[in-house]
């Protein structure tokens, strides 16, 4: 997947389209914070893929180019989903017996630094954004996950939909027993 170094700045999209993309991301964040997971599923294309790879510590080698984010991404992921497995996860959250999310955690997603570039296919945007996911669980358990989202948004007859998401986390180890929330 292309990354920040091959930026063509956000000039390719019109102001309206930039606005539409940002509104999509804000709305998506609100649906997740409000735990409207079924509505959230409706924002995904049927062929949507969703990955949150593990990020590793990599040393730069003297005389070689600096370490890129892609150099740090493991072949193994915390989330390695398609729409079917995401739907299963959503279904599970609704059972009332997914104890890690019952009582549900209280989340707040802050999405910013939205940049748009043309996607690989017509009608698609490659969208970079930053995410802060703040989470309060049970009585006093607080976690914060931060990362970069690399999304592909596709224009469809249902409006913009999320066709691909790769989340680059900033932590090299998950400091929580539970990553039951979507990024």
């Amino acid at each position, binding site marked *: 997947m292309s990354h920040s170094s091959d930026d063509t700045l956000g000039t390719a999209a019109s102001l309206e389209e930039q606005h539409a993309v940002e509104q999509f991301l804000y709305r998506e964040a609100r649906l997740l914070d409000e735990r409207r997971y079924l509505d959230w599923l409706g924002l995904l294309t049927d062929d949507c893929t969703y990955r*949150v790879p*593990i990020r*590793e*510590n*990599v*040393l730069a080698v003297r005389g070689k180019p600096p370490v890129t984010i892609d150099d740090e991404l*493991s*072949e*193994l*992921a*915390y*989330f*390695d*989903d398609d729409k079917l*497995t995401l739907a*299963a*996860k959503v*279904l*599970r959250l609704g*059972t*009332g*017996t*997914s*104890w*890690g*999310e019952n009582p549900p955690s209280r989340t707040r997603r802050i999405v910013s630094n939205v940049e748009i570039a043309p996607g690989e296919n017509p009608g698609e945007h490659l969208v970079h954004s930053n995410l802060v996911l703040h989470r309060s669980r049970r009585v006093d358990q607080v976690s914060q996950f931060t990362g970069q989202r690399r999304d592909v948004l596709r224009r469809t007859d249902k409006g913009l939909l999320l066709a691909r998401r790769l989340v680059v986390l900033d932590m*090299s*180890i*998950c*400091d*929580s*027993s*539970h*990553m*039951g929330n979507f990024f």
Partner: protein
Amino acid sequence: MARNVDPNLEAEIPGLLSEDGTWVSRRLFFDPELYEIEKERVFGRSWLMVGHESQIPNPGDFFLSFMGEQSVIVVRDNAGAVRVHLNTCPHRGMPVCREDRGNARTFFCVYHGWNFSRDGSLVGIPNQRASYPEDFDTSNLGLIAVPRIETYCGLIFANHDADAMSLEDYLGDMTWYLDTSLNRRAGGVEVVGVQKWRIGTNWKVPAENMIGDVAHAPATHSSVFQIAPGDPAAEQALKSVLEYGRNVALPNGHGGTFRVYPKDDVEGRLPGETALRDVPGVGEYLASIQAEAEERLGPVRKHLKIATCTTFPNLSLLGSNFTFRVAHPRGPMKTEVWSWVFVDCDAPSEVKDAMKKFFSLTFGPGGIFEQDDGENWEGVTYGASGVGASEHAFHYGAGLDAGPHPELPGTVSRVYSEHTQRGMYRRWHDLMLVP
């Protein structure tokens, strides 16, 4: 290496466990003083799994791992041998390796610049002439080597105790069971990546869960069974747990929960969860290698599958999910789990990919099983430690009728049994009783 332990504390160790292991003190799960003793008496003497040989195929390949809380470098030297060095500079203790994995010609200490070869020898000191005499002896200033390293099916085990029994003796019949996951094909297995996460629990909690806590599944994992209502595969799985499940305790604190399928149940004994076998290509692959596996495993073990098992102290393997893990201690109430996916070396790449995906779906902090395990493991650790509560021991009395079995080595019972946990805690206790 043994430290002096306060005699009052020493005198309390015998009473932490009842004679038959049925009553276990809650202090095992939160007490900082016991934890300090345990670091030496349990983790200083046991064979600890640090990784898999497939992570370091070539000379210079290395990865960072842990033995308990001790950071270690696992590296293949120029002669092709696996070495395990403590990741601490002999000069002032700086970790000489600061990346998760890679290939290194040497390990360079970034504090004062000492440089170490793959086999651990000190090969460079900046300004050596200005600091030390001409004939300065560097031979005792290499990286500290872990004295014992042995392998089984590519799993690398290391032991701080130079006098420890051999790995083969230590594992004993555990390999008879582990073979059913790791030794199915002549080409062996390789591992993919490693998932790491921290849980607010004592390391023994995940270890005792995997050693045969089948009883937790219906309550803890209810949500997973609920999203497949009426699914004949899920119903069959639940039925087979009761009918075919056996818990087995082995010497040295190992044990697990296994399924022994009837001789004519050719389908049931295929490895992997049904949902994984349904992925295009995977079921076909697993069926296609079954003849080879059955030939290798022989008449009894070809009917046997690992559900979950624990090799004492902290290595656990989940058969149907093709993953093993180590629960590294990180303080009395904190554990860092490292989890690897294992795949047959000779499996097609789409099968390997499917296994990776299935692992992330089910286990690890994003997994639909693991999340609720984590919730409970944190809860029991928190719940164990309160004033008043902490004086009341936990009961591990289920399955007192465990005994020998005509075909399976070890002490065997039906699945709703805690005798594998009693075995684990007796082993822990035996080690703790020896200063």
